[in-house]
């Protein structure tokens, strides 16, 4: 497997084939909660891309230079990654607030949401323990691979949540039966979208 091709596979796998929202159903709360308007879902997607990339890179460093040498990674990685994500979100919020108030107004309300976002934790975890790719059981990402993977996950999150928001905006004016209004119909739509995304399975042998 050539080097660029492997990067491509990692990216595509994270983006579509093992899409974090629709195939693995991680981070359902933003999928249902922040997808009522296209505008807010774009804001959320941008914030997730930003935070997820930073969190995964930091987690990768912490795993490879702190946890693994000490041999405590296997049972300590979740608290450590949560610590990293929470601190990074706080830090990012402060920096953005100071450096770019307009960006803060656009992204600020989503940043605290991301602190407890399971997608970010999942991406951080998998960037050090790649689970899905059928590459090699003992395989570990290098830092560039980890970044490519995380950006793929975040873009997959963004694409799906924006598609979902577009559908939900049109659902607002559709004659949905009273019982199904709101979240129930959103879950049904998510299931249908998920079926569509399952069509990517086994693409390029992934």
């Amino acid at each position, binding site marked *: 497997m050539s080097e660029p091709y492997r990067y491509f596979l990692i990216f595509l796998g994270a983006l579509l084939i093992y899409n974090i929202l629709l195939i693995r159903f991680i981070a359902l709360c933003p999928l249902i909660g922040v997808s009522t308007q296209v505008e807010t879902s774009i804001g959320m997607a941008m914030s997730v891309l930003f935070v997820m990339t930073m969190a995964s890179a930091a987690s990768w460093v912490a795993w490879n230079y702190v946890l693994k040498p000490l*041999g405590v990674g296997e*049972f300590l990685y979740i608290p*450590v990654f949560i*610590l990293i994500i929470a*601190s990074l979100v706080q830090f990012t919020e402060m920096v953005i607030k100071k450096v770019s108030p307009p960006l803060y107004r656009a992204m600020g309300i989503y940043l605290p949401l991301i602190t407890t976002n399971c997608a970010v934790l999942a991406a951080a975890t998998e960037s050090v323990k790649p689970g899905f790719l059928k590459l090699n059981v003992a395989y570990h990402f290098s830092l560039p691979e980890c970044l490519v993977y995380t950006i793929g996950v975040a873009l997959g999150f963004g694409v799906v949540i924006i598609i979902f928001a577009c559908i939900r905006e049109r659902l607002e*004016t559709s*004659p949905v039966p009273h019982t199904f209004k709101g979240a129930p119909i959103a879950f049904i739509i998510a299931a249908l979208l998920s079926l569509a995304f399952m069509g990517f399975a086994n693409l390029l042998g992934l």
Partner: protein
Amino acid sequence: MDWSLVWKAAIALGGLALLFGILLAFASRRFRVETDPRLNDLIGALLGSNCGACGYPGCEAAAQAVLDGKDSVDVCVAGGRKVAENVARVMGVEPTMAERGVALVHCIGGLEESVPKAIYQGIDSCAAADKIAGGHKACEYGCLGLGTCMAACPVNAIALDQDHRRWVNRDRCTGCGLCVEACPRHLIQVVPRNQEVLVVCNNRDKGARARQVCSVCCTACKKCEKVCKAGAISIADNRAWIDYDRCTQCGMCIEECPNRCIVRVAPRRRRRRRDLVTAGASSAETGS
């Protein structure tokens, strides 16, 4: 058991926590944004529902506007007097509160009074229903009863009963006027709170036609205009209008109106919704 794992874990977690703690402490100093300490108190004093009735994007923006002196302490339209007092306390000034009015729906015709001419099965919105062949209601001016105003109300002051009559809870209504803009038929107005006698019909049809479409309608019979001693009532556009400045709340017109479309609303009296509905159905004593 390998006890070395314990101190290794402690070192790893403690070390990283310390590192991030120092980083955050440094960042909070380096990237501090000077904010007025009153800002948080102000946000706490406001309702926090980000309803947007004040015209700002949210409660935080409204609080900022008050701090900057761009707006007065009664910025929160939905919160009314109570919130204005709290905001004034934070700002250390006397509460200046323009007495806001109360919303009034100029129509009390429900399904019983004004039988629909068609069955509407579309988007649950008055604006949409209004656009289709002049609405499904017989009266082309009356309330469509799909609850667009209820959805717009930030304080849940508007209720709808099973006969599609609207009731404004005057204790809850803060007179913010969001429903005024929401109603596609422009039936809602914010009227002075001390005004008790009100016309609750907006039908502009000629008398005979108006009687056809609704049993509680203004037919512009001019009886109220004649009986009014203060000269507060005038007929224009085939309906009665009360000049709130001249009205003495005597209620002569209420007794005179043959179609019961002038009503007296009880000022600031707490009623349960059930009472409102029964009172409205039996007589027109209670206003909407």
